[in-house]
């Protein structure tokens, strides 16, 4: 922890970055995102197993971009999201400065290539509880699954915490907010909720880095991350590629390749 703070202060003092984004202790000992712009603010940084948030979400926000270059204390999920953001041309390589822990040592990862290399050493298996839940859902009949999601989504109030906490939901004009024409009902009724969550899951198929942030962000505890996890797993199975592993990735669902194994496309 001291090494991390020291590195953060060093980066700020040298002027390499304008802010260090990490975690701090919040209400009732939870962990919250924390922007340190002064050495005193660096002292509030913590990093432990309670830190879960995917901080890559902030890197595409106007207010954060305005700060200048930001160093990010990056968990593996944050690193994956960052690689995917580079692949989708939302971040430039020279905007990258990640602080990753390697044992007790702090590594500064200054480029997409460095992040790729660092991540290759990590395993990022889906949490067992989520995996088990997806298996349980897949073992259900279609009617049972339908009933399960109807029940879960009935609690949705369309606060969009799932969308706004997602590092890959960076669109400035989200289809959900589009009113000319209005593609999806704004109202949080059964149809509006279902359409929203279906669109969200499909839009993240092949792009979800499986951080689970959407599910954690949901104030009413709907496991919405299972939808995007499943969409990502299906894409990985069918197209042989995963989001968040490389700075160069063609989006599986919108890329044409002459050597595609399907014949209908030729």
């Amino acid at each position, binding site marked *: 922890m001291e090494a991390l703070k020291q590195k953060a202060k060093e980066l700020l003092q040298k002027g390499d970055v304008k802010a260090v984004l990490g975690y701090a202790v*919040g*209400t*009732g000992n*939870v*962990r*919250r*995102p*924390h*922007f340190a712009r002064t050495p005193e603010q660096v002292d509030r940084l913590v990093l432990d197993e309670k830190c879960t*948030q995917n901080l890559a*979400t*902030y890197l595409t*926000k*106007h*207010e*954060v971009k305005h700060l200048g270059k930001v160093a990010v204390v990056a968990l593996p999920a944050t690193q994956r999201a960052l690689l995917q953001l580079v692949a989708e041309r939302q971040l430039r390589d020279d905007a990258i400065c990640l602080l990753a822990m390697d044992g007790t040592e702090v590594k500064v990862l200054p480029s997409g290539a460095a992040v790729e290399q660092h991540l290759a050493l990590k395993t990022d298996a889906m949490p067992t509880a989520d995996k088990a839940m997806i298996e349980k859902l897949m073992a259900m009949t279609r009617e049972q699954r339908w009933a399960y999601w109807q029940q879960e989504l009935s*609690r949705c*109030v*369309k*606060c*969009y*915490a799932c*969308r*706004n*906490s997602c590092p890959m939901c960076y669109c400035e004009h989200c289809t959900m*907010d589009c009113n000319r024409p209005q593609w999806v*009902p*704004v*109202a*949080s*009724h059964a149809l*509006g909720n279902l359409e929203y969550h279906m669109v969200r899951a499909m839009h993240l198929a092949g792009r979800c880095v499986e951080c689970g*942030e959407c599910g*954690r*962000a949901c*104030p*009413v*505890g709907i496991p919405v991350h299972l939808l995007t996890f499943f969409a990502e797993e299906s894409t990985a199975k069918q197209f042989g590629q995963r989001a968040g592993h490389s700075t160069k990735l063609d989006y599986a669902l919108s890329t044409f390749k002459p050597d595609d194994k399907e014949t209908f496309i030729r």
Partner: protein
Amino acid sequence: MADTFKLTHENLDGLFAVLRKDGRRVLAPVDADGRTELNDVEKPGQVSKSYIQTIMSAKDVVFPKVERLLSYTTEPGSVELHDAEPHALPTVLFGVRPCEAKAFGALDAVFNWDYRDKFFNARLEKMAVIGVSCTKADDACFCTSVGGGPADTKGSDILLTPIDGGYLAEVLTDKGKAIQALAPQLFTPGNGVDKAMIAAKLEQAFDQPALTAKLPGMFENKLWEGQSLRCIGCGACAYVCPTCVCFDIQEEADPKQGQRLRCWDSCGFSMFTLHASGHNPRETQSARWRQRIYHKFSTYPERYQMLGCVGCGKCTRACPVDMNLREHLVEAANA
């Protein structure tokens, strides 16, 4: 001064039965997968034993997340309009906290300000509140900083405070008396317990009148930008808030028919004040965050002579990035 009685646990069982027999649904905090939800219950045994607050507020009883205001059908040359009627169910809210009970006053201020909203009023009329005093508070609570208290009676028709063997029951309003009249034998004479000794102790965190007085001079303060930097601009805070009253009117229509809906909205959303011209007077998240504070602590007192915040802390608990309202208000008060 309220009439004070004792309501034993057994008699509360009886009261629930009597209320349901009277045709009212009873909504109360219930434990569900680690969350506390407001659900329909039959018996007090179903009510959560350890909750501080429900996640969502009870506001949707009077101000649902989606309300149909009217519908219409169109044929060549004619339109037929149908007024919607509120589907208001007789409801008893049991176990809401004093902060939340008080919050209905802040909703009332808007829905009956320059126009009497028939949907809100129809629902409010059929609702009664049996509040339960808090015996504990958490780091998100700050009712005592905004003129409330863990055993405050305002907004409750009957306020219960836990005592040995049951509750101290204060019957406060005509609606409360009507509930008592359904089964007067269940309310036994009180024994003069001092509820202040039982209620949670919560120190005042900031001087609210002083904060309200200084806010107009703080519009350009850098504080808002710093506080809002981690805000992700979702609507969780507004949607769990018992006083947030903003709504959006949506039209769902096809060439033959349509309906007009009132849906919850949030000042945290980037499109909340977006003009048709493309101009947005609250272009940044910090401007939107400042709006949230000002609306509750400056505009509300100015316009309605009350606060738009009851200090329940639901926003803090629901926030995915832990925007702690109490902490931010303390910062503003000290700025």
